[in-house]
């Protein structure tokens, strides 16, 4: 049986959503056969040199990294194995669990996997003694509460998923 024909692409999409195939007829009368083509994959994702950060979150620790070169000593709130300023290796350091909002936003959309979590807040947090920032989720506050400079504190998931979402920040009460 020939698939149903549509002149609206939206109707084509709906037919595909119903599990069928479709023929789209464009303004010049050209017919295009359109089918679904699913694609799923399970990645084997190693955190590799970033692993101690994610293991730290599971212990309620926020770990950054510090350049080992004395004259550089850059402290990264988002850890990295080598210093981007001087290229030296870094060592792990504990970050304070309190910081301030460097910037923030409320997302009313997200990619497909996160749509069900909307709206959610993102924040770049700055820490005393660190030269770079950390991007995190910000909870327990809304658009009208947030401002650049707002003091925030870290919360950790007692049931860690080994994801950056194992830590989030909330306003300091």
């Amino acid at each position: 049986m020939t698939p149903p024909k549509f002149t609206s692409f939206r109707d084509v999409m709906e037919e595909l959503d119903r599990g069928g195939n479709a023929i789209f007829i464009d303004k010049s009368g050209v017919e295009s056969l359109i089918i679904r083509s699913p694609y799923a994959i399970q990645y084997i994702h190693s955190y590799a040199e970033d692993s101690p950060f994610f293991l730290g979150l599971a212990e309620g620790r926020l770990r950054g990294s510090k350049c080992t070169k004395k004259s550089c000593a850059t402290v990264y709130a988002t850890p990295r194995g080598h210093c981007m300023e001087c290229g030296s290796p870094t060592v792990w350091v504990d970050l304070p669990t309190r910081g301030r909002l460097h910037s923030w936003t409320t997302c009313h959309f997200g990619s497909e996997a996160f749509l069900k979590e909307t709206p959610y807040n993102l924040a770049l947090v700055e820490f005393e003694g660190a030269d770079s920032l950390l991007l995190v989720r910000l909870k327990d506050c809304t658009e009208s509460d947030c401002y650049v400079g707002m003091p925030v504190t870290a919360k950790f998931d007692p049931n860690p998923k080994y994801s950056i979402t194992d830590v989030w920040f909330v306003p300091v009460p």
Partner: protein
Amino acid sequence: MAGPSRVRNSIDPFGKIIKDAPLARAEGTTLARSKTKTGVRERKVVRSSRSRSQSSGRRVYMVTGGVTKFAKAHPAMDFRLMVRRAYDYALKGIPNLTKDRIDGTRISYFSDHFTRQLKAASMVQDYLGMNPKGSIRLEWGGATGGECFQAGYEAVASGRMDVCLAAGFETMSRVATWKGNEFIALASDTNFDFPLGGFYTGYYALMVVRHIYEYIRRTKFAHITDEREAQRQAVAEGSRIMSLVSVKNHLNALHNPYAQYPKSLSVQDVLNSEMISYPLTREQICTMSDGAAVAVLCSESVAREFTDKPIRIIGVGTGTDTMRLADRPFGKVPLMPKEKASDYTHLEYPGVHSFRAGRAAGLEAYRMAGITDPNRELNFIELHDAYASSEIQTYEDLGLCKYGEGYDFTERGDPFLTSVRYPFPTPNAGAIPVNPSGGLIACGHPVGATGLMQAVFAFWQLQGSVKKHFGDGTLQVKNAHRGAIHSHAGTGSAVTVSILERGYRP
């Protein structure tokens, strides 16, 4: 193929061509002297670091280009046919420019995920019948098209090719919008950034909230002591001014038949459109598209065979920055010729508010082109306005105004056209039109094609042929002699700037 039959004129084939644009001379070139028995003798040319980035390669000209209409979906064309359509448009009416004259290609598309066809560039090469000529596939996030253009430039400048086809495309309609956003966000750190929401608009929102804090809260609203209230007012002000950019680009696009979303909007329409990520609304953000664009780049010796209106590429620049916003440093501003260090005594740069890669790319391209005052020396710019915010941030990166002046620059109207009526005053309109085509916000953003689309629109501006190609001359910048194109990848992690100049006397 580089066949023996090719005519290589040793005499100047450009009777009327401006041979030595004074701006393009390699400044800083000095003659090193060394002592010999016979005394001081000129030995060799030594180049200072300032001149090192200047082209020592062959002159490169763009001779034609083509684009497909950008659309939400082109179900009747796959990527191969889209490129073929743009290619046919480019070659139409140039009898001397046949497939056998093309020495090789540079082909760009951003995402294998979107295309769901690896080595899609090979299939384009194949479909155009270009085998077995040389080709390289380019990918650089949002700057993919801009990089492809520069790769084509380099193929010719290096002497490797006399005629290079630079072609780019993207087919983003093969997945639903929010799956598409996921693919785009996979171009952010998948350990630290992606799992937070996988949403690029969120990243740009973080950047503009800080930009507004630095440049509106701390200036215009410095007198308000309640921090929340001051920032709320500053964001409202920033959002209003960003909306001017959105109105401009959508209105300009009413005169561009290739644009995906031409429309007449008011500032209030833009502000009232759906909130996507605070404070960015739907009308301040570009969309996903299907589309293709091609540019044909040539050496000086053959360009005249194809057109008597060649456009020369006089400057190319690229810059980069950290993938993660969180890693952006807080340092000093690399200065434009007109800026002083004292202009930015208290500014920590780039932070997350500005695009250091855009500044670096602009500086390199300007230096190569000999440009010291872009507002006066460029007649227009097609820049990467994936967000209305990033258009304003880019005005500053490219030195059209100082850092912090982008909002005032917009309000004064400098980047607006004189030939389009906007629903608000634009006293300085025509000073340096930005995105006369409508930019990404109104034309769409089929990633791998976008940077090449800018090249084609700039090419038509410089040839004075906008009316011929658009069927409407409204967007033609009068006497456009030199323009810039700017292509930008995720949160400013990579940027290209290319400067194009009329290579003939009108």
